[in-house]
């Protein structure tokens, strides 16, 4: 029996909240299938399984905060005898063999450990108690043999006035329309009124129904529009989770501080004449409908990806005191979010994509990044990151490397400047390109070779 655990969706993630299961016990899953939605500081992320098999049991309920590495479900690998399917919503008593204790969360997030005396059979109940700040030694169990049940914990939580910062578990959100947490979040992001989708029989509204109710193309949602849990039924629940923006700020702070602490950065900069590239682009776009047009960023990304295949020393990870080159270029793209913060999802295997495919992927990625619906792989597999879309007007951007990556490419604004060509002064579209390199992995000589390669590709746009 294999465990499906809370994945690490980036070096800055300690824990995640399970938002929604997309599979049920008994479902057959294959490597790469999306099985759950997990909420992190940065976004709601669709999480894939890396196993082939049959879902045996779901160990945690939506709304549960689980540390990275903590078990979420068990999967019977292909070829093994399938276990009897458990009920889709595991009750505390149904939790079978005690699941291994999840990796300890950061000390600050954990209330003092309870004594071993009380009978608690279910890890779910323990976790619930942690979340709600309930000391299990003070709870009297109402279950068999005095076992503490979830209801006992909830009852105790109702009487404990505690300034707790975890989100209120979804099970208690009874005031509003019934909906799955992911559906609720989607509805907020897409500006859909859940009331309009309410089922008369009390069935929860699902994410699919919300999507169906969304008008054709979604507007890029305001990332600040995250709904907090509906009105809390008891005073003890009045404390909501910190807003996403604060959590994202904290996540960025952690990761960037780690980068500056651990990575000896070196910086290079070069100026690239984009006259040929922009002329070529303009000519190509002239005959295309608006939806098919390319933006200059697509050329910059493709040129970067191709150069990374030629100078593989900048494409990969620094782990265990050594450099591991990546076999493909998964190009991370820094996407700034309205309302603050940024995410850096990756365009997978960017070097092998045709320009129009890369453009479509980039559009899709930016839309989903801002709508909070990225896939796990997109956040974990970036091998080299580009920050550009420095279209915010700055002339150049010198970035901070995303550990464990070893380089970061920055493009400033494309602007017309006086430029000498063949002894004559002309006005050309110019961009400043920078490289932040990890000096442990490469020297400036290698970094320089890489920038030269990007420049070379941008001078031959027809080959991109």
């Amino acid at each position: 029996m294999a465990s499906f655990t809370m994945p690490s969706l980036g070096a800055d993630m300690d824990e995640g909240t399970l938002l929604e299961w997309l599979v049920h016990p008994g479902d057959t899953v294959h490597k790469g299938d999306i099985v759950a939605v997990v909420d992190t500081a940065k976004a709601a992320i669709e999480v894939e399984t890396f196993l082939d098999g049959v879902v045996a049991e779901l160990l945690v309920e939506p709304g549960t905060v689980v540390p990275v590495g903590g078990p979420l479900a068990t999967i019977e690998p292909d070829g093994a005898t399938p276990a009897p399917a458990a009920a889709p919503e595991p009750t505390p008593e149904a939790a079978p063999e005690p699941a291994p204790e999840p990796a300890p969360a950061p000390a600050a997030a954990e209330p003092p450990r309870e004594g071993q005396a009380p009978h608690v059979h279910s890890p779910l109940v323990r976790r619930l108690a942690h979340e709600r700040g309930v000391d299990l030694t003070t709870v009297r169990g109402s279950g068999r043999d005095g076992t503490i049940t979830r209801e006992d914990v909830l009852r105790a939580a109702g009487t404990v006035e505690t300034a707790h910062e975890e989100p209120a578990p979804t099970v208690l959100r009874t005031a509003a329309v019934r909906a799955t947490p992911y559906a609720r979040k989607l509805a907020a992001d897409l500006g859909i009124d859940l009331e309009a989708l309410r089922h008369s029989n009390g069935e929860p509204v699902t994410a699919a129904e919300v999507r169906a109710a969304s008008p054709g193309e979604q507007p890029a949602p305001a990332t600040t529009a995250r709904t907090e849990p509906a009105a809390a039924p008891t005073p003890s629940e009045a404390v909501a989770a910190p807003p996403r923006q604060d959590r994202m700020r904290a996540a960025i702070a952690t990761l960037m501080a780690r980068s500056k602490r651990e990575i000896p950065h070196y910086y290079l900069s070069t100026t690239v004449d984009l006259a040929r590239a922009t002329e070529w682009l303009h000519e190509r776009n002239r005959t295309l409908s608006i939806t098919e047009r390319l933006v200059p960023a697509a050329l910059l990304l493709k040129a970067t990806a191709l150069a990374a295949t030629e100078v593989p020393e900048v494409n990969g990870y620094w782990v265990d005191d050594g450099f591991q080159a990546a076999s493909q270029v998964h190009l991370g793209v820094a996407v700034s979010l309205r309302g603050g913060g940024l995410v850096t999802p990756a365009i997978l295997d960017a070097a092998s994509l045709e320009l129009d495919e890369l453009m479509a992927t980039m559009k899709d990625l930016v839309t989903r990044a801002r709508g909070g619906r990225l896939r796990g792989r997109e956040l974990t597999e970036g091998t080299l990151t580009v920050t550009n879309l420095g279209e915010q007007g700055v002339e150049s951007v010198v970035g901070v490397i995303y550990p464990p990556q070893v380089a970061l490419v920055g493009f400033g604004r494309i602007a017309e400047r006086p430029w000498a060509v063949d002894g004559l002064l002309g006005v050309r579209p110019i961009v400043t390109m920078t490289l932040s390199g990890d000096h442990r992995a490469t020297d400036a000589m290698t970094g320089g070779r890489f920038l030269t390669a990007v420049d070379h590709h941008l001078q031959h746009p027809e080959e991109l």
Partner: protein
Amino acid sequence: MTNSTLTDAEARTLVAEAIQRIVPDADLDAVGDDVPLRAEFELDSLDFLSFVETLSQRSGVGITENDYEHLVTMRTCVGFLTGG
């Protein structure tokens, strides 16, 4: 260059709606007619492309890359869309 039949008021509404598809809480009334929209609402090139797409689709006016220079402020956008 255009044969649109939009009135000034219709064009103004369309521009506001096209911006609000990207920045839902954008308050166009609070922004002067001569303020550059891309900078004001921090539209990146993908945002701008989708802005252009919405304008073109809803107005029926074809918009080439050469026309982008007319799509800077509310005033220039309305002027372009109404053929003025």
